[in-house]
């Protein structure tokens, strides 16, 4: 198929359909409203179902129901809407159900602004619901990558029976770039023989959340964490950019990583040996990238559209909090190339 020019939000909708998703439940909010709008017209054409729920809370619980019935199901929102969905995300996680949740982040906290942000890192990567859990979190930096990652997200969700969160900033949803759609399943996935599809003559299936016995709940949680350990081993994903001779490394994800790449071009022209570690998944965090490069990197320059929510993960990954310098903008401001160059030069000094 030839490339088409599409907005990130619409491209994600198309990617979901290509990956076999037939159910969407959501509620409009800027900057992701084009995604439900697109699916409201496109899902019925492929025999799917689009429901604009009365609120984000009901939408995420419709996702819970559809996932329990074995459907490939999607919901999307932006920061304050995702905050409302947290309870449901915890329930879906606890019930070991697959689902894909898109968060086109905007400035916060509270209702915040509608401009792009990355300040839902804590809520999404550390978990905004109650209890011991993790969700896989993928972080696209282009419209094409959003497409590829959404397709992969459905496979990851089904394979590990976990919710997967696509964490992008509003700019990824709003901008247009050329995209292609090639869905190649990551695994040959088995039938969902656990799904609630009406007992008939078959065996009884249950999707449960309440565990009365604490010992039993602990066993349940430990079973989840065995899956998480496997995900941490198998699914770390990152890009290494101009690190071969680098003495310094930016750490950035999403739109910011692209602005950082422009900054790297300028800095390298002036002789600075600097590259980038770009996490493509935020959980599991790419520990292996840091293990690989830490020996030659003097300092990590963490740049985000937040007040530094990823810093702790970078500190843990490189095991030296003194090696980290942070620069961030907040509230919906996208940093410019120039300010990142100035920040980097201040850290590197005359250290070319």
């Amino acid at each position, binding site marked *: 198929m030839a490339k088409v020019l599409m907005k990130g939000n619409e491209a994600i909708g198309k990617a979901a359909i290509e990956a076999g998703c037939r159910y969407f439940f959501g509620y409009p909010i800027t900057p992701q409203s084009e995604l439900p709008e697109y699916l409201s017209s496109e899902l019925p054409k492929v025999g799917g179902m689009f429901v604009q729920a009365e609120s984000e809370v009901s939408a995420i619980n419709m996702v819970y129901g559809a996932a329990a019935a074995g459907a490939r199901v999607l919901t999307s929102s932006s920061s304050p809407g995702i905050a409302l969905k947290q309870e449901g995300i915890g329930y879906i996680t606890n019930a070991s159900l697959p689902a894909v949740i898109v968060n086109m982040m905007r400035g916060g906290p509270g209702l915040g602004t*509608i401009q792009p942000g990355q300040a839902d890192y804590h809520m999404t990567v550390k978990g905004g619901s109650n209890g011991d859990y993790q969700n896989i979190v993928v972080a696209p930096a282009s419209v094409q990558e959003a497409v590829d990652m959404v397709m992969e997200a459905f496979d990851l969700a089904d394979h590990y029976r976990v919710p997967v969160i696509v964490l992008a900033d509003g*700019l990824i949803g709003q*901008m*247009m*770039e*050329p995209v292609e759609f090639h869905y190649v399943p990551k695994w040959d996935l088995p039938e969902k023989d656990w799904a609630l599809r009406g007992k008939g003559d078959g065996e009884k299936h249950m999707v449960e959340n309440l565990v009365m016995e604490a010992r039993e709940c602990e066993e349940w949680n430990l079973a989840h964490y065995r899956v998480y350990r496997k995900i941490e081993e198998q699914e770390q994903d990152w890009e290494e950019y101009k690190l071969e001779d680098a003495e310094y490394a930016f750490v950035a994800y999403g739109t910011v990583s*692209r602005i950082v*790449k*422009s900054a790297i071009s300028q800095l390298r022209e002036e002789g600075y040996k600097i590259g980038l570690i770009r996490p493509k998944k935020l959980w599991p965090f790419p520990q292996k990238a840091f293990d690989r490069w830490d020996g030659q990197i003097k300092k990590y320059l963490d740049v985000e559209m937040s007040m530094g929510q990823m810093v702790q993960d970078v500190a843990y990954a490189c095991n030296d909090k003194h090696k980290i310098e942070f620069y961030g903008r907040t509230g919906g401001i996208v940093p410019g190339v120039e300010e990142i160059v100035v920040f980097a030069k201040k850290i590197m000094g005359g250290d070319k």
Partner: protein
Amino acid sequence: MSTQKICCAGFGGQGALSLGKILAYAAMLEGKEVSWCPSYGPEMRGGTANCHVIVSDEAIGSPVIAENAACLIAMNQPSLDKFQDIIADGGVIVLNSDLAQLHGSAKTDKIYAVPANTMAQNAFGSAKLANIILLGAVVQSVGVVRTESIEEAFAQVFGGAKEKFIPDNKKAFALGYTFAKGEHA
């Protein structure tokens, strides 16, 4: 050319975003790397709207233009005032001279003042195609893409029921192209 940055700006409803989209589409059809990045705030009809288009032979870093734009298309006065400093030295400003005037000096002397509303009104009886007239002037003065690619982009963007709009769009494009050619002949 390795990278060209173009900023299109105007009132909401003037077609600044569509202008940028057709330019981006044409560049994509030529196999270039492209990004189209809209301003999205509380924009509405009558408010300001702009988009940043980047066309490159390489993967595009920041999709947001802060400086060194090869071209600014200013469809009204607030857009010209707000964005004229992001133009690169020797860049091109294409302005809709019916709604915007340059006061004082600009960073470039390559200025194309196109009375696009008047031209559209005269040719089509409405100002709707003023944006495509300006696009014609941009392709003539800055390049970025070939005329044939724009025509192919029209065919892709105006598919199906919208096909009837293609002839007028081509005509508007040609009007702007010819005008710009005459300006700096």
